[in-house]
């Protein structure tokens, strides 16, 4: 399937916060509580449309356990966007955000767009982290923030698509130089119908919406 741009995303956060479920909800529009835990990394992909341009999101879903941090760090290379996920019902997953962020800052491109997601917001009765705390953390660290639920699909589309929107805007604003091969180090590939350079106008590429692909 042709795309104007391909963005590489990485999903990070403590084990069991729902990274794989968020990905599955986004790519397959379903919630599967019983799935195998992630060893190393798993991949997902989906086409979205922004500004009438087909954009392919290639998403890396990583293992969350501390022991695997050293290998997870090698996945940051060339990611355009990151979803940093915590579980609103488990305080410690929120407490660990700073260390995840440090990894991301250290190993990823400085212009990587990071979206903070407080997952499992359907479990409000077991909430251990308030929405305000999440907002506050995001503000302090310059992240976009959203609470979401992989189970009910609330805000899942938005989380992935808003991140893509932000990256797309960075391209339009000329933050990334997508006119040459260097764009790949930002986690962006220009595909068929892509516009080289920040100020390109619309072209005739077909818009591809919503479907899943791999």
């Amino acid at each position, binding site marked *: 399937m042709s795309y104007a741009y391909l963005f590489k995303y990485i999903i990070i956060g403590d084990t069991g916060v729902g990274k794989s479920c968020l990905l599955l909800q986004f790519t397959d529009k379903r919630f599967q509580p019983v799935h195998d835990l992630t060893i190393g990394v798993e991949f997902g992909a989906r086409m979205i449309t922004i500004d009438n341009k087909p954009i392919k999101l290639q998403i890396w879903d990583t293992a969350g356990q501390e*022991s695997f941090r050293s290998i997870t760090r090698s996945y940051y290379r060339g990611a355009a966007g990151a979803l940093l996920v915590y579980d609103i019902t488990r305080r410690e997953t929120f407490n660990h955000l700073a260390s995840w962020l440090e990894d991301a800052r250290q190993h990823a491109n400085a212009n990587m767009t990071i979206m903070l997601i407080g997952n499992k917001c359907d479990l409000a009765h077991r909430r251990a982290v308030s929405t305000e705390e999440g907002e506050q953390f995001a503000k302090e660290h310059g992240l976009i923030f959203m609470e979401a639920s992989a189970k009910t699909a609330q805000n899942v589309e938005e989380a992935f698509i808003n991140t893509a929107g932000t990256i797309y805007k960075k391209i339009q604003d000329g933050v990334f130089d997508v006119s040459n091969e260097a764009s790949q180090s930002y986690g962006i590939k220009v595909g068929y119908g892509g516009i080289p350079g920040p100020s390109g106008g619309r072209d005739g590429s077909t818009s591809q919406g919503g479907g899943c692909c791999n």
Partner: protein
Amino acid sequence: MHETDIHDLSDDADYAAASKQGSSSVTRSDSSKRSSSSEPEDAQIVYLKDNVSIHPTQYATERIGGRLKLIKQGSSLVMTWIPYKGQSSNPRLSEKDKNLYTIRAVPFSDIQSIRRHIPTIGWQYVIVVLSSGLAFPPLYFYSGGVREFLATIKQHVVIVRSSEDANVFLVNNFQDPLQRTLSSLELPRSLANGTPSSSFRGSPSPSDNNNQETQLDTVNTSGSGQQNNNRQRQKTQDPARDLSIQVLEKFSLVTRFARETTSQLFRDSLVDGQGQSQSQSQGQGQNERRRNNWASKDHKPLEMAPIDAPIAPKDVPVPSDPLEFDKLSLVWGKPRQHPLGVEEWSNFLDYEGRIMDPDALKKRIFYGGVEHNLRKEVWAFLLGYYSYDSTYAEREYVVSVKTSEYMTIKNQWQSISPEQAKRFTKFRERKGLIEKDVVRTDRSLSFYEGDDNPNVRLLHDILLTYSFYNFDLGYCQGMSDLLSPILFIMKDESEAFWCFVSLMERLGPNFNRDQNGMHSQLFALSKLVELLDSPLHNYFKQNDCLNYFFCFRWILIQFKREFEYDKTLRLWEVLWTHYLSEHLHLYVCIAILKRQRGKIMGEEMDFDTLLKFINELSGQIELDPILRDAEALCVCAGENGAGLIPPGTPPALPIPEASMYQQQDDEVL
């Protein structure tokens, strides 16, 4: 030539059997001349030699004796070698095994060359190389007769002695470059030196050769029982094994060179070791030309020895050619057998239940695995929960002692009260992690599916108990993947626990906080790929993939996610035999990579693409061919391969002095 005069072999069991066979061969050969229906009317046996054997492995018990014949059919000459029926000194060597090596009527028009080896002491042997590039295993003439063999051939076919090596006889083809190519077989040292990173052993000098032949005989006469007892020693220092590995190495070179020769790459240029050393000035240009040949002829020689000039993947399409690789495993990897069954298993046990020949058992399992209903019993041995020399009664006793020991450890965490747990963060964390993971482990399997499945509870209890048994290592993701099949087979909680403990003795370092166990295996893997496929190694190097993180999951949980569940069980029991190598899993990695090398290099995959590609191989890999390839690679790598794997690399048992499982921020209780 009469080696028996030079060196008395009469006390060698195999030799004795062969001699017996030989003594009665004359009458039978006469009758075969008259009555054999397999030979056409005009066929005439012009040469017949008994006691010509092949040595599929370094073990004397596995040699296969047979009869070599040259038959004249009209104007053509054919060669046959038929193994003797039911005469093997090893009853476990099946007829099927033997038939694999049978040479049925090969016309000399298909033969490229014959290389003879006439050591001063020891058996003469010849290696017959086909035009297709395949070579038959060395044929050992226990009763001499190589000279006569060659003389007979000469009467019927045009053969020419290589101008540069008096021991190479070229059949059908005697162009100059070819002669030089074949004669270069003698120079693996110079070939190896062509690649600075290579550690291939050089060819022994004639005097070395003699010494080793002598040692080979010494070992041969020592009998097979002793060999089994001394497997460990043999592995590390047995000169006979060294020699056989050298022969294997040369053999792989023979195969390779012949293939390259027949592919006509060398008709106009010569770029192997000797050619290079003789004409350094031309070397570079010839490399270039050969590269072009590959590209233009769409041909890729087998990359077994690290002697190739690096291919530039950006310029050259790398055709995927699994057929070439299949040929390798047909020569070196034995066909897989049916799994070990109940009846056969009982033959391995003495009347009190001891395993009489653990090595034979391991070998049997290596080639065929174990029938499912036997796994519970056999795995306990393979994993080390039962010792091979234990009796039924002793095992019963062990089970009862170990069960109560397990309960004691389990009770340590079961007795933690909620109040105590509040002040025991480490415990709460581990318990929480394990609870989260056991419900995400193989739940699609009926054994673990459904709510409140008692087996999921057992996974939890065993893992938490293990994290107390080995508190320093604790719990890490991936362990539930390793435990799941063990519990599935053992069913019993305590037995599953102790089998898991045994497995973790070897694989524990995979889960160290600093990942040192994983890194040492990935490092060894990169070294082995450098040895066995230097172009692929160079490709990974150029593309920043040398960390081999794309093989991380394979190694961490022993390919558990790459194969269907039942195939994983099969693979694991094969790996656990540690037959051939403790590190067969690394050769399994290489076997898989080799089958994909054309794709990887042809599509110019970068790190990200490669990682995704490898991940997506999950469920697509056929186990049996991969095992066969892995065996072939392991045999080809030989001692050189083993030498590249640092001591203590998992699943080798850790070096005793090394401090295990150091955790940086684990606080002492």
